[in-house]
């Protein structure tokens, strides 16, 4: 059975159709990129898979759980236990340092553990920036904290919405290499939304979206 199954997902915002009957399957441990122009519905699709949004109709299964049928509490539990998010903006708490930002995610999952948070930041190569606040860090470093924060609770699914959208090419490459390394070590599933053709070439599979529908679904040649 596939890790993620989407059946005829429709999302409407009043008269506007964000998704028009999207169906697809994603295997466990796969890295899937979703490409498309602005307004094509890729972020909406990502949010629905991650339980941040609900479809107007259709069914979403993650690890066999029908998440669009979950209550608010169960959905929060699903997001807490199963998923990690990385967004274009870092959304780090500005008055907390790097370790504390990671510990905050641990706190909402279970309980804060400083030693473990330091370990997570070391894994993304930020062992020398532990006590720095977001404003004292570069955009690339901030995104690396976000990755450490997203992965500290050991999610099975990492959802990244334009994670390199604010970065230059060098930092983009560094983040993607980091994701590739962590993905090969820990085998979590990645769904990454981007409009950057360079980014879309990383991973194993790329979906092209347009006007709320999937236009193409192709493997990426290594």
């Amino acid at each position, binding site marked *: 059975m596939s890790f993620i199954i989407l059946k005829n997902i429709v999302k409407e915002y009043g008269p506007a159709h964000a998704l028009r009957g999207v169906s697809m399957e994603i295997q466990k441990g796969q890295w899937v990129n979703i490409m498309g122009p602005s307004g094509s519905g890729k972020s909406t699709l990502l949010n629905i898979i991650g339980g941040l949004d609900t479809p107007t109709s259709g069914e979403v299964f993650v690890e066999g759980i029908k998440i669009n049928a979950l209550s608010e509490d169960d959905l929060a539990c699903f997001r807490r236990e199963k998923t990690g998010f990385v967004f274009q903006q870092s959304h780090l708490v500005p008055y907390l340092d790097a370790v504390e930002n990671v510990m905050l995610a*641990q706190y909402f999952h279970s309980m804060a553990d400083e030693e473990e948070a330091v370990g997570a930041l070391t894994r993304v190569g930020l062992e020398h920036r532990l006590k720095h606040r977001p404003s004292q860090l570069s955009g690339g470093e901030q995104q690396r904290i976000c990755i450490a924060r997203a992965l500290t609770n050991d999610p099975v699914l990492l959802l990244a919405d334009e994670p390199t959208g604010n970065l230059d090419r060098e930092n983009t490459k560094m983040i993607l290499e980091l994701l590739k390394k962590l993905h090969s070590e820990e085998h979590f599933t990645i769904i990454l939304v981007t409009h950057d053709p360079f980014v879309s070439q990383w991973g194993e599979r790329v979906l092209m979206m347009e006007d709320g529908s999937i236009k193409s679904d192709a493997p990426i040649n290594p």
Partner: protein
Amino acid sequence: MPPLIHEALLIGFKEAAKAGLVWLVFYSYLVVNDRKNFVKPFYMGLLVSFLIVFMSQFLPSDIVTKENAGNIISMSFALFLIMSGAALFHVSGTNMLSISASGYGSTLPEETQVPSLKPAAWGIIVLLFTVIFFAPDGMGSLLQLRELSYIKGRGSMSYISALIGVAVVAAVLFTVVGLYKPYKIGGFFDVPQLLLFLAMVKLFGSGAKEFAELSLLPSVQRGFMKFAHDFVHQVFLFLMVPDHPLLKATFWNFIGIFFGPDFASLVSLIILLLFPFMFLYHSLRETLPEPETRSVAEGRKIKAFILSGRRKRALPVACFIVLILIAWFSRSEETIMQMYLPKPIPVVADRGVVMIPVRDPTMNVMDGSLHKFSVSYEGRQYRLILIKKWDNTLAAALDACEMCPPEGYGLRDDHVVCIYCGTPIPVNTLGLPGGCNPIPLAFTIEGGFVKIEIHDIVKKWGFIKPLQGKESMH
């Protein structure tokens, strides 16, 4: 229909409220932890308790039976208190039932696991504890009802009143539980907390001295005071302190601080609070077990689960501490300090014999109260006491003991109390020599008079060596 007896109604209210509260907490605990199969031994325990209480109807109606019932209630309280501490250490503060219900049990180290007794063994334990909890209190209440029935002279009306009290509480309880199903409170308890809860219900809801008495606190205070006194006393005796010729008055007075009601009351409060504070420390400070899990995040989640459970279960314990403190300080004045202190009635020695009328228009030495007398002989004053014991015999003694300065005794409940050191001495032990007991005197009752040889009084007052030394201090 004759009017209800209010005291009996209150007894019914009290016992039903206690039983209802215990049932609610225990049942909720079983529901939350998915162990409803243990509710059957609980009900069986209630049935056995009821049979024991019924049988106690045939016990003799005297003060000794009542005193014994009070002692059993106090002992069952102490048992639950001590068992709660023992359980806390044994189960290490981890609610294994909830852990096992959550599926985390296998991830934790073996030493944190719950003792692997068979369900039947746990069933017997539940049954036994139910009986130990309910039977003594039930017996005490039944004795009170029987006494009420006798005093009020209205036959079975006291029992009917109590049953009405029980029925009212049961109706309220069933309505509340039926409407709100407040089983979530079970999540605040683990086995040690349950035992502590039972001890606290006994502390605040038991009492065998008076009708519908709501607290064991006076008994506990007296018990702890006696313990504190005896401990200090024995230590100094072991060090031969009282007999030491070099001791000065100030030193003896210093020792007296340990015997005094203020200090002993404080120490006894500390001893009582020791258990709840032990629980709080364990809940909030004890190291968490390290689960063996696939990922560190999962291990952290299990630790958070245990920690949050511990914090949750610290909440009722914190409430107990507040309740104990409020009850202790609000009751301590009335229970510890209030003492009957009669003035000595002067009597004379006629031809070497002190003669005190057993009854006259102003006094009856057999009325159960403390009676003090003073006698002047060869220029010195001596004091003596008379009091009726529980077996309806009279006790005569000097108004002094071998240990303390001779400030005499007062009466509080069923104890004479040394005014100097605050030691409570059960009235039925009067007449026995030694220690803190008033020094007994030989006497006869002839022609309606209590007769005591003056030379016995003089000899015993004078023979007490520490007394002589200390007497000069005052």
